[in-house]
């Protein structure tokens, strides 16, 4: 089963079209293995992206270097998944 330890979901706020474009460029860097939960759209609408642990640092440096605001929406995806599994298991038992 796929493991998501250390994966974070970032909520990116692109202030203008140029910043949306910058984030869109990230989408094509396949080695980062980004999973856009909410894809890049017009400025002002949130962009949510799941970032594997191995890419977190690089992505944050990239965003900060371009002055693109972001917050951490989910600190660790795996911990939420564990909670979800526990809830299902608790119900089944």
């Amino acid at each position, binding site marked *: 089963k796929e493991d998501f330890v250390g994966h974070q979901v970032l909520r990116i706020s692109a202030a203008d079209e140029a910043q949306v474009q910058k984030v869109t460029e990230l989408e094509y860097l396949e080695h980062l293995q980004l999973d856009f939960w909410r894809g890049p759209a017009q400025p002002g609408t949130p962009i949510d992206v799941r970032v594997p642990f191995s890419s977190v640092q690089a992505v944050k440096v990239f965003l900060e270097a371009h002055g693109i605001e972001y917050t951490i929406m*989910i600190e660790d995806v795996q911990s939420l998944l564990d*909670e979800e599994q526990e809830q299902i298991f608790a*119900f089944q038992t």
Partner: protein
Amino acid sequence: RASSTDTFSYATYHTLDEIYGFMDMLVAEHPQLVSKLQIGSTYEGRPIYVLKFSTGGNNRPAIWIDTGIHSREWVTQASGIWFAKKITQDYGQDPALTSILDNMDIFLEIVTNPDGFAFTHTKNRLWRKTRSITPGSSCIGVDPNRNWDAGFGKAGASNNPCSETYHGKFANSETEVKSIVDFVKSHGNIKAFISIHSYSQLLLYPYGYTTEPASDHNELDQLAKSAVTALASLYGTKFKYGSIIKAIYRASGGTIDWTYNQGIKYSYTFELRDTGRYGFLLPASQIIPTAQETWLALKTIMEYTMNHPY
């Protein structure tokens, strides 16, 4: 395993087998109202089931509701289960629903992407696409909401098989999509088509592949406003509404663009809870409230469809 749909738990997430078992129980408990149709098989050979709610007549005007076309959006399949039970509970009790079912049929496809859904339970909880193999690529799956013959392949989808929004080799390449296309065409009397996704709390109408407004834009907008108002009346959950391309982004090959172009005027997509605290990992404690509030919006659209025959 629940022994009836009364003891079945609607407040937890279920596997594909449990959901298919629920469907069989519901049909067995309400043979006069509910039947189960198989409209096709998935890439990996799983049956694709649709529940039909009908009180008689022959090829009556119908309403289509589907959930789970993106397999990781678990709150949608869970809501679909709740809707199915609600319909059987409220027929004969709730005047609006009773009137709808006395005049129309309702088709409900709870697991629209069975292969992807099974994969979220076994291998990768965040899987979104189908599980078809693309020759020449090591990446799996097509985005079933980019594979419809409406602006197919245009901007708003990816031609990269490794992308989450890969549109596939050709329109309707995915059997999960083609099965619905064939069903809609053979039925020929569907008057409303509602495809349910999560998350973001949006109610969307065509188009996603063009900025051209739909010819019924004003009516669709007004009805969307009424529907999200009804939804918010229960728990105050705020939904935005608008055309796909305006409310979120350009998306080509989408389900409701195709259904609208088929002449199904009341074509809508829901994006359920939440706005991004949990995203696709919405806690099970929110399943029932999400389903309850969404049901009010669905009833608004269904009632309007019934009262505005075309």
